[in-house]
């Protein structure tokens, strides 16, 4: 613990190493802050296809720069956010989206989390109810004896009576 704190302190105190990551360059920024904000928001949802799990907003690859400029071009041309996304998907395929669309082949992806939650919840509810009922049955008045048991009891009692 103390060592970690010390390490953290060292990290905080010193200047630290980083690979070259540039992302948005000064010359790309749009003049209108509202449009620039939209461009940034869209950039975060789009994948830099030659990178490793980076959005074009984070990446310094040439392709990411091209895509950023393309997004800004479309926004400047008056496209809505959806139109920009559709345009990019039509050009680069669905791989460009960091959040896949809800379609047949992504059904499991989108539905598994709610399925686990509700399925798990339902299963738990049924389980608790069943166990509760079992327990109630177990603690309530003892079950009436079956015919066999009754016969055995009678026999035992009769034997006991014989001995005395």
């Amino acid at each position, binding site marked *: 613990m103390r060592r970690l704190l010390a390490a953290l302190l060292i990290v*905080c105190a010193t200047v630290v190493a980083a690979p070259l990551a540039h992302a948005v360059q000064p010359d790309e920024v749009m003049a209108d802050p509202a449009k620039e904000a939209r461009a940034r928001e869209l950039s975060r949802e789009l994948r830099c296809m030659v990178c490793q799990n980076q959005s074009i907003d984070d990446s310094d690859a040439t392709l990411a720069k091209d895509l950023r400029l393309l997004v800004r071009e479309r926004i400047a041309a008056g496209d809505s956010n959806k139109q920009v996304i559709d345009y990019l998907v039509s050009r680069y395929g669905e791989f460009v989206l960091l959040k896949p669309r809800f379609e047949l082949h992504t059904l499991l992806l989108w539905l598994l989390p709610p399925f686990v939650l509700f399925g798990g919840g339902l299963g738990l509810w049924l389980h608790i109810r069943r166990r509760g009922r079992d327990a109630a049955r177990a603690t309530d008045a003892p079950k009436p004896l079956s015919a066999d048991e009754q016969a055995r009891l009678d026999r035992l009692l009769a034997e006991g009576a014989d001995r005395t």
Partner: protein
Amino acid sequence: MIAEAGHYALVLALALALIQSTVPLLGARLNDGALMNVARSTALVQLLFAGLSFTALVWLHVTSDFSVVNVFENSHSMKPLLYKITGVWGNHEGSMLLWVAILALFGGLVAAFGNNLPLSLRAHVLAVQGWIATAFYLFILITSNPFARLANAPAEGRDLNPVLQDIGLAVHPPMLYLGYVGFSISFSFAAAALIEGRLDAAWARWVRPWTLIAWIFLTLGIAMGSYWAYYELGWGGWWFWDPVENASLMPWLAGTALLHSALVMEKRNALKVWTILLSILTFSLSLLGTFLVRSGVLTSVHAFATDPSRGVFILMILCVFIGGSLALFAWRASALKQGGLFAPISREGSLVLNNLFLTTACATVFVGTLYPLALEVLTGDKISVGAPFFNLTFGPLMVPLLVAVPFGPLLAWKRGDLVGAAQRLIAAGVVALLAVAFVYAWTRGGAVLAPLAIGLAIFVIVGALVDVAERIALFRGPLSISLRRASGLPRSSWGTMFAHAALGVTLIGIVCETTWNSEYIAAMKPGDSTKLAGYEFKFEGATQRQGPNYRELLTQFTVTENGRLIGAMAPSKRSFITRGSSTTEAALLSRGFSQLYISLGDLNDQGAVTVRIYHKPMVLLIWLGPIMMALGGLLSLSDRRLRVGAPKPAKAPRVLQPAE
């Protein structure tokens, strides 16, 4: 010579692991104490040899023996000593060696401190540890020998990837591995319980400290990795939902669930089967993480190993252990008796709810991480699943969980009083609502969700405090009595308070950083200045400097607030000669829990440098939270019930005792 000795030590460790994985089982079958005790000595000696092997590799790196491939490829004679040592696990072979060394360490710890375990349980646990160790020793010896030699030793090495030449490498992987591998203990305990067909509350008491230790390290390891990414990658992101990050988050989520369900099992002897399953799943997810990172199946920033033969080998280990343990579970779990009953509204019920949400969150991360891989393998379609997906699915799952967190500790075991708990949380609710109103007014109607999220965080923090306040009857009697009660309160209650409050602390950091961070990107020349978030940044000048194994462009910034100088920041850019790559060095300046952050981009023709300046409000809370959680875990670990509750070792010599 050292390399061969290290290699040989590893082979001996494998031989010991083989003995450890068979002889004690035979002993348990024959009810032979001496054979069962073989597990103990082999585990200890195996630790010795794995340690020797690891030390040998460290020695080779420190002495820059470039006749060894691993050293040649990842080291450089001019590299600072710290990075020579950390470079040992900055590559595939070395990091696997660290993995098995830590596995041997945990096995050795169980052997050394497991005196109070029943002999046959200890034999079984160590035997299962032996199986895992055998698999990974074989993996290293067959596919990833770190001691392989070069025929003609080169005069100089290729140097370590510059990104990894950082203090983060000294801390992050060992912590993470202590967490990952630590969960192997709960896995082995679960497998042992299934093999023995015996499981009681004492079992949970033995497992819980090991799970806690692993969980503490994993928490710190993930937080450390996040902080490393934050300052390393140059744009101040701290979580990317990268598959490799997800690989560490999944065991953490499952491990957190396990900690809570083990609690139910220990106190109430319920949830046994589920706890066993979680123990298996948690370590399986650790193995999956190792597979994802080490096989190179994902090409992501962390995956610096890409060799399919290794991937197939780890996949085999994965299938054997996960498949085997789940099959064992399916076969034997029905033999375990169901435990105590409880009403849905009870402490147990709340812990079940916690488990439901954590498991769902884990499943979400799991499907999001593996779905693109599976889809590509099955249909050839390529899709991306990134941060926007996880934010949309994982985020909403955390909200009900966090709302429920303060209620849990306030409910009684068996049958709780939800209304009573809610009444006791009224104060927390009021404070939270005030916080929402205050933040909303202060940000003058900006984002709506952010103040609500801050309110939730405050509710969690105050709720955690309310729990302890209730227990010590604060404000309801004389302070002296409360203080006496506080000193008598079990440490685990304090641990719960810290860990739960830490969730709120982390949430505040996350919300503030993502909602109110500001950035400035421009090309600046010496003498230029700019304003951001009330601070003025002046670019004073740039100089060139020679480092041990790099050249550096060093810039100077001064930061003033309302005309008052508050500090200097010196971001720089380094060019590494051997690897021909460069890194930017971000400069950080903390203001309370907030940070100012500058990183450099390219130098253009006119002598201007691209500069990125960020103001990150409350960002340090993101990592303070996990540190508090780990502290909570430590407090809980020091609780006396984990030390004195378990049965004491018998006075008579154990070797001669038959197992039950």
